[in-house]
């Protein structure tokens, strides 16, 4: 309902990202900078969440946009620019994930104050337990535990889960970005959720 935003949206819908891209393809730095500004937050958000490190996210940002600058001449408008950029970023993220040394398996069981094992999934059904201030520390530990579980997925599984669960993209789009089919993306998602569930089901 915001007046200025909707008018601007309508204008921007008519206004050509296409023009910007064409100008950038001809070599215009001004146009390329404008494209960067449109996509930079999304790129950083994804890279930051995936790598967990501002430093790594910055590196991915740098490489992604430098690549985009170098290869923007190859962009043929056969997909959206959004998909094209994301394809570059996800490939860089995949490389990063592959490069990371395998962390030592964190087999530590989560325990509560009284020393009893916590079955994480059993406690999840009561979502209020997460907002309980006494369990702030548990929340932090939980977060780390989830990151560890995510780290056990293969890079592709991690990537698909990230794009689906955290970035909310459609499986078809994810397939495009990873240069594969929607069907493959689906199967990768199934594997990822299965693995995560067994990781997080609590060690008895």
């Amino acid at each position, binding site marked *: 309902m915001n007046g200025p935003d909707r008018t601007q949206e309508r204008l921007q819908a008519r206004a050509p990202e296409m023009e910007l891209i064409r100008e950038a393809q001809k070599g215009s730095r001004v146009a*390329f900078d404008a494209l960067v500004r449109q996509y930079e937050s999304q790129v950083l958000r994804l890279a930051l*969440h995936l790598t967990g490190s501002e430093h790594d996210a910055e590196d991915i940002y740098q490489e992604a946009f430098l690549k985009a600058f170098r290869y923007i001449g190859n962009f043929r408008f056969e997909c959206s620019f959004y998909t094209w950029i994301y394809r570059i970023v996800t490939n860089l993220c995949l490389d990063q994930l592959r490069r990371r040394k395998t962390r030592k398996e964190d087999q530590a069981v989560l325990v509560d104050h009284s020393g009893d094992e916590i079955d994480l999934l059993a406690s*999840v*059904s009561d979502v209020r337990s997460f907002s309980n201030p006494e369990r702030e520390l548990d929340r932090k530990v939980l977060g780390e535990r989830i990151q560890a579980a995510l780290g056990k997925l293969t890079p592709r599984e991690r990537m698909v889960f990230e794009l689906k669960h955290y970035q909310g993209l459609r499986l078809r789009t994810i397939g495009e970005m990873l240069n594969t089919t929607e069907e493959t993306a689906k199967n990768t*998602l199934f594997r990822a*959720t299965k693995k995560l569930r067994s990781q997080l089901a609590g060690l008895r």
Partner: protein
Amino acid sequence: MNCEVAHERIVLAAYGELADDQIHELDRHLTTCNECRDEREQLLALKTLAGVHSVVEPNANLVARSRMRLEEALDALPPKRWYERWGDAVINNFGRLQAAPVAAALLLVAGIGAGSIGGYEVAQARSAHAAASTARAAVRTTVVPTAPADVASISSIVQQPNSEIVQVRYNEVVPRQVEGTLDDPAIRQLLMMASEDANSAGIRDDSVGLLAAECRAGHSCNPAGIRDALMVALRYDRNEGVREKALKGLESYVSEDMRVRDAVLEALLNDSDPRIRTEAINILEPVEADMTVRQVLSTVATSDQSPQIRNVSRQVLRRVPEFQ
């Protein structure tokens, strides 16, 4: 439906990827199958858990740092020479597979051309300098360019083993000059390139000024050429003097060209400089009755930061009766 299929569909449904009829089918299965109902609960629990590791918005510092670093890296790239741009244009404009061998052949020609021209230019530069160095001076002697501006980029730095000698390869910028009238396509081409020169606001100002003057005089201000360049300058140039000149150049096209109109409306809504926003209102006078223009003016009349601009917008709206 067997349970294995159901398990997969449970995942798809949880992520909004299941077709409506399949959702219905799944729900029917779940009313009768305890195991699958449990499976669904487990998956929903996983989703909640996974949410604890939440997505964080990158903070402003991170964005700024990243952007600055990128700008520096882009600034350090050697500028594309005309033959490289030409090669790019050839590749971009040709179709795909059939043209690929042709394009490759042309690129090869361009590459050879580039190599020899590059060599030729270096040789020119050498002889142009008063120094007594030979054509291979850059590698052998200790003569360095007198001004940092003469160096386009450094391509390698090698320290000789077991010595204090360091070898630096660099590329030079060769200043050239060309003269002609504004009708000359080569001059126009150079002016359009200049309008995108990210480094110098003064250069962009001069070139956009000249291009805008051409457009005002109605001298072949083609949509695909100068007009586009002016619109890009109006939308994205960081310098308000440049944007103002671009705006004035587009004035005569606001009635006939929707894209120009849109660009001017965007300037009216978004430009940070009130002078430009005011000028945009003046320029929109011939199309005051246009629906989109009126909508933008209404928005501006209530939400612009400057009281004068709000006032002027209201006056304009009153001037033209509304169409039903």
